[in-house]
Structures are given as C-alpha cells and as structure tokens.
C-alpha cells in the first residue's frame, strides 16, 4: 500500500514536471551551444532577455553530439557550433534553410600552463623534458586541435613536440588535462584562459600560424524569437563582449 502511493506520487511528480516544461515552451529558446562558447553566451543572455522579452535555455555540449542529435530531431531552436563544417553539413542535409547560417565568432588559440608567472612561448616547447606532456584537442574532432597542429607545423616544432602530445576529446577536456597538472602545457581556446578558475600563465598563438577558427551558427526553427536571437548574435553591438571574452567578432578580422 505504501509502495503504491509512493509510485503514484512519483508519477504525479513527472506529470507536473512535464506540464511545467510545456507551459513555458512558448517563449523559451533552446540553444545548443559549443562548450567553448557557452560561458560567453551566458554573459550575453541577460542583455538579450531584457531587450527581447524571450528566455534562453543553454544546452552546452560538443558540437559533434549536437550535430547527431539535431540530425535526429532534437528540439533546439538555434545551434552555435564550434566549427563551420557541421553547420554546412546540416545545410547540405536540408536541415536548415538556405542563408540561415552565419559566422558568430572567430576563436583564438592560446598556449596555457597552470603555473603562475611563467614566460610561455611556443618555442619553449622545443626544450621540454621527455616526461612532460602537452595537451591538444583531438585534431580529428576539434578545430582548436587542428589549429594547434598547424601552428606547431608552421614553427617546425611538430616533430619535436609530437612524442609529448596527449589528446583531449574536445578543448574542454584538454584544458582539464593542464588544470589538473597531468599535462604541463595545453593548447586551448583563449576564451577558456580568460575564464579559468586559476589564471596560470599563457601566450596567444600568433594569428598567422593557423587558419582562423570559424565558429558558425544555424537557425533551426522559424520563429520570431529565434530570429531575434539570430540577429542579436550577429549584430556589431556585441563585438566588445566577444572580444573581452577572447574571440574576434566576425567582421573585425
């Protein structure tokens, strides 16, 4: 008897929760956002919500997973990818209408160590001891990893550093490798360096050493609210916020 009423309570709880979720669905936008940009979007969120009256629900994650989920009908309104390729693949598959994708930010690559007051530079990596590790995001999956490989190759350091490389699944995990001390250095997003729990020491990798890390977004559902966010994120007005957070605004570069 007790077990039965317990069960009923659980079911009632679930029903209430589902009702609540559907009740506020009308003016709430679900935004699938690349992990590296989610803190920045959270900075912009109050401003957008105040100005537009719509609410945002941020769903951070790896762009590869978001892509698989959107391809299978995930109920997202907007997708801010960590790259341009996946957005183009969505367009090619007919998941988004023509013209409903835009560049929203350019990522910047940094070399970071947890140790404070260090002078960090790419060239110093050549003098690493054999036991020291350098973390990069898996270049097969992550644009920041590709950029890191390109920068090392441009400096003719790749062959020297390669035995020390460890790979994170994405740039978030790559940061954790260095934050936990498992790796002495990590190639991470400059945006992560700026929001790191500990400042550590870093050097920005010169822009000329790698291809720009183009982050594109796509409008997945047609609605007034989704269009409002899509336009807001491509307006020049937010450029200073982007730059403070460690990105270049799309047209500034």
């Amino acid at each position: 008897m007790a077990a039965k009423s317990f069960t009923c309570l659980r079911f009632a709880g679930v029903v209430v929760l589902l009702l609540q979720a559907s009740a506020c669905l009308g003016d709430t936008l679900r935004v699938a956002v690349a992990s590296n940009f989610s803190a920045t979007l959270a900075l912009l969120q109050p401003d957008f919500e105040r100005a537009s009256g719509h609410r945002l629900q941020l769903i951070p994650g790896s762009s590869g997973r978001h892509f698989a989920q959107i391809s299978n009908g995930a109920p997202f309104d907007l997708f801010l990818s960590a790259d341009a390729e996946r957005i183009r693949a969505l367009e090619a598959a007919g998941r988004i209408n023509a013209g409903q994708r835009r560049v929203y930010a350019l990522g910047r690559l940094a070399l970071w160590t947890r140790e404070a007051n260090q002078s960090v530079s790419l060239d110093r990596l050549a003098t690493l001891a054999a036991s020291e590790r350098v973390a990069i995001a898996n270049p097969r999956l992550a644009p920041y990893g590709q950029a890191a490989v390109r920068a090392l190759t441009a400096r003719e350091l790749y062959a020297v550093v390669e035995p020390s490389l460890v790979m994170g699944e994405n740039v978030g995990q790559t940061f954790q490798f260095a934050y936990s001390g498992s790796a002495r250095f990590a190639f991470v997003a400059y945006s992560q360096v700026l929001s790191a729990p500990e400042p550590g020491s870093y050097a920005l990798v010169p822009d000329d050493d790698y291809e720009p890390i183009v982050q594109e977004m796509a409008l997945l559902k047609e609605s007034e609210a989704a269009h409002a966010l899509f336009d807001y994120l491509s307006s020049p007005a937010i450029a200073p916020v982007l730059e403070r957070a460690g990105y270049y605004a799309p047209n500034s570069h």
Partner: protein
Amino acid sequence: MLTASDLDAFLLTLQLAAVTTLILLLLGTPLAWWLAQTRSRLRGPIEALIALPLVLPPTVLGFYLLLLLGQDGPIGQLMVGMGLPALAFSFWGLVAGSVVYSLPFVVQPLQTAFAGIPRRLLEAAATLGATGSDRFLSVVLPLSRVGYLTAIVLGFAHTLGEFGVVLMLGGNIPGETQVLSIAIYDHVESLQYSQAHWLSGILLVFSFAVLLTVYALNRRGFRVSVP
C-alpha cells in the same frame, strides 16, 4: 552554490531512477522467472541479449537508441504515426533507455534468487492446494527477498549514475532530460569547477547514504528471519 537548474537535475535524476526501477521490477520478475525455470534453447541467446548493456559502451547504446527512437527511426516513426511525440529528447525516452541499460542489473539477481528456490517447496505448496499466485506471493517472494533488494538497489543506483545513454538520447534539456551526471559534466566542461564539486559531493553523499541504509536494513532483515 546550487542553482535552480541544479536542483531540477537532482529531482529529475531521482524520478528517473525510481520510475525505471519500478518498470524494471514489473518487467524483470516474469523474465527472470522464465529464465530460472525454462529449459528452452532460447535461454542462452536471451541471457546474452540481456547482459549486452554490461559490455557495450553506453555511448554506443545511446547512439543506437537515438537512431531507433528519433523522429526518423523505426520506433520514432511508429510513435509519430500514432500521433505521439517521438521518444528521443523526452523524459520517457530516458526511461526507455534506462530500462534497457539497467535491465541486467535487475534481471540477474532475481534470476539467481529464483533459481535458488528448491523445487520441492513449490511442489509441496501445490499439493497443499496453493494456486500459482499463492505460491508466488507466499513462497517465492519471501524466499527471494534478498534478490529483490539487490535488484532494486542495483537498478536504482545504476540509473542514478547513468551518463552516456542519457547524454546521447536526452539532449541535455534542463528540467526535462538534464540529469545530475550531465549537469556535473556541463559544469566541468564550462570550467565551473566549484559547482561541479558541489553537485558531485551531493551525489556521492546521497548514494552512500542510500546504499548504507539498504545494507543496514538487509542485515536486520536477516536477523529477524533467522530465529
């Protein structure tokens, strides 16, 4: 410290684990009974099928469930055809995924418990005129109490700690499919380490308390049943 969405994630996780465990007990009991009694040649393949989630990486399971339950998948199409929403990215989709994922953790202890019941006890009960349901309620159930307890604890705990399947199948939607393990992962990914610590600590203490209570109850139950 904890935000409203962290609290949502915690409640949602409890709901998911409770609903999943309940469904698993209802499904698992007849299944385990059949497996414990049958001499069918199908027994081997079905046991292997049930044990698969123990071996498969959860992300693989989650990906296949996503393809199966998503709007273009066979089950998703069936649901949409019946005028229902596709299961992927909903609470009930997570329940479906968790039932598959935690199935062996409920079926295996029950099967072991059922197999340990001496046949002659059931036969004796039958000769005394006990019907099938009588025999189940007054012979099988009391004798497999420990099996049920183990099944409930493992089913609940395994669903509580689930990650790969719900991440893939749920879409990480706050208040609907964002369970605790995913909320923690989010915090770690976005460098909010102190919030991640808080949530992990809560999960750790809560899980430990649940297990401790159950094992304490279990030991007391033993003493009472052995005079």
